[in-house]
């Protein structure tokens, strides 16, 4: 065996456990999802008949699917916008001088690491209609007459869930942007100052362009993650009231379990996968561009 083949063989050997795992628990299940999506199958008995694309055509004609699709869109865009705004703002704040900055950083970043279940518990507590502090404050300071129905009304519920998600996830944006901000050479700002640029134009002409690549990555990544979010919405509202916060991941769950319709659940999962692939393709492209820009 040549050295090159031996090296390659060792590479394969190192990859083998992971690859084996991927094949058995990711690739094979993906194939299975595709197959199941072509069957009319009950979750209880796991038997059913082959019906081709009927699950898909039924979905595309169902109001439930399009409702969930629309909700997913609103959810993803809403989360993204709020996270981006908060995230970038706090990155800029935490980059500058600040009293007790290390503590401020830790406090701001912490929600990101919190268990979703903790975030849900705390916010449900805040939102609670009978004992919640938010309603108490709102009533006390005369903002509203009666308690606000944070989670039991649309569009309140969607807004509330988005707020919680943004609260929990924005530190990711902050971390990413902060890391980039710290990487901008100070000389650039010095040069701009000498060239007579004021603070505002230094921000627009140096900071913003420097942040663009990292923002691009963050946007795609957060889009993917928000798009597939299940836990937070499910625990917070279970998709309700009505179906006003029911997104595609929740619909998959609902089809497969409460409705025991495995086939159509799998079909929704496949549609999600297709959408995900588009994001993935964009992300991978952006990633490669970044990679080659960095290594050059």
């Amino acid at each position, binding site marked *: 065996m040549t050295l090159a083949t031996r090296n*390659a063989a060792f*590479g*394969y050997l*190192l*990859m083998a*456990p*992971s*690859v084996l*795992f*991927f094949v058995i*628990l*990711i690739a094979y*299940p*993906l194939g*299975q*999802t595709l197959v*199941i999506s072509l069957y009319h199958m009950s979750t209880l008995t796991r038997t059913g008949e082959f019906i081709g694309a009927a699950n898909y055509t039924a979905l595309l004609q169902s109001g439930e699917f399009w409702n969930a699709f629309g909700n997913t869109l609103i959810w993803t865009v809403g989360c993204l916008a709020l996270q981006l705004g908060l995230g970038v703002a*706090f990155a800029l*704040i935490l980059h500058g001088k600040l*009293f007790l900055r290390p503590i*401020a950083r830790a406090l*701001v970043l912490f*929600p990101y690491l*919190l*268990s*979703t*279940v903790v*975030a849900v*518990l*705390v*916010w449900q*507590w805040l939102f609670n209609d009978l*004992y919640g*502090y938010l309603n*108490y404050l709102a009533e*006390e300071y005369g903002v509203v007459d009666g308690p606000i129905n944070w989670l039991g009304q649309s569009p309140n519920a969607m807004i509330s869930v988005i707020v919680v998600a943004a609260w929990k996830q924005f530190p990711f944006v902050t*971390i*990413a942007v*902060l*890391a980039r901000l710290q990487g901008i050479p100070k000389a650039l700002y010095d040069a701009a100052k000498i060239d007579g640029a004021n603070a505002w134009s230094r921000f627009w002409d140096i900071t913003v362009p420097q942040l663009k690549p*990292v923002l691009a*990555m963050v946007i795609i990544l957060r889009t*993917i*993650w928000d798009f*597939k979010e*299940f*836990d937070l919405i499910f*625990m917070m509202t279970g998709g309700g009231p009505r179906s006003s916060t029911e997104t595609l*991941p929740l619909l*998959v*769950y609902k089809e*497969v379990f409460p409705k025991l319709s495995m086939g159509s659940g799998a079909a929704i*999962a496949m549609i*999600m*996968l297709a959408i*995900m692939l588009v994001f*993935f393709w964009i*992300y991978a492209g952006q*990633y490669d561009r*970044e990679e080659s820009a960095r290594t050059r």
Partner: protein
Amino acid sequence: MTGARMLRLGGRICRDVLVWAAIGLISFPLVWMVLTSLKPRIETNGYPPSFLPSSLTLVHYYDLLFRTGFGQLFVNSLFVSLTSTLVAVLFGIAGAYGLVRFRFAARGLMARLVLFAYLLPAVVLLVPLYVIVASIGLNGSLWGLVITDTTFALPFALWLLRAFVAALPPDIEAAAAIDGAGRFAILFEIVIPQALPGILATAVFTFIMAYNEYLYALVFINADQSMTLPPGVLRLVKESYDIDWNLMMAAAVVITMPILLLFALVQRHFGQGLGAGSVKG
């Protein structure tokens, strides 16, 4: 002090106060969580609710730890997250090293697949995983959960570690090869010691990810005695025909403890870890 300097200082103080107010707003839910967990129940459910507790009590923590199944949930969660983290990091180090340093057919494709698996929504795998786990008889068992959690923990760890290994200077491994180290010796004596901070950060993030996992535990675990915290706590505190918010907040605080500890441990590598895996590459 000149007027201009005074003005500037005043401006800065104003700014800092505003910024800290914003930070206080962000942290308010957490403060409220801790406060509630220490309040007597009567202050929580009364009207109007009190902000600062008039008397502090640890009774909710006592109830949580000694009068509910919380302890079992906690142990289960630690077991599942530690085991899947261990598997993910071990496989991940080997895989990341192989992926970064060795040239073999389909290497690029494999890197893509790792990224893909990393971004894959859990619900897409839910249906078949559910059949697979059930068919090998691990339904309802913590080991089954270890397997399903590894479906996201491994790609995540691999992706993160890939960045850490790629950041190591390859010359050092070349030097070791020339100095007489075999392939495994290079991995264990040269690569792993150097990547240790990265490995530790990865392990912590993987742990937190597994520790927070909800969907698979919800679907795959039946018995309370083998539940993990996220779904278990909701069942524990919300379904016994009595919503005890103080107990819930105590649970929230206790759930957060291990994360807090780990966070303190790797705070230095925090940005690096998250950034490396996802944004910076």
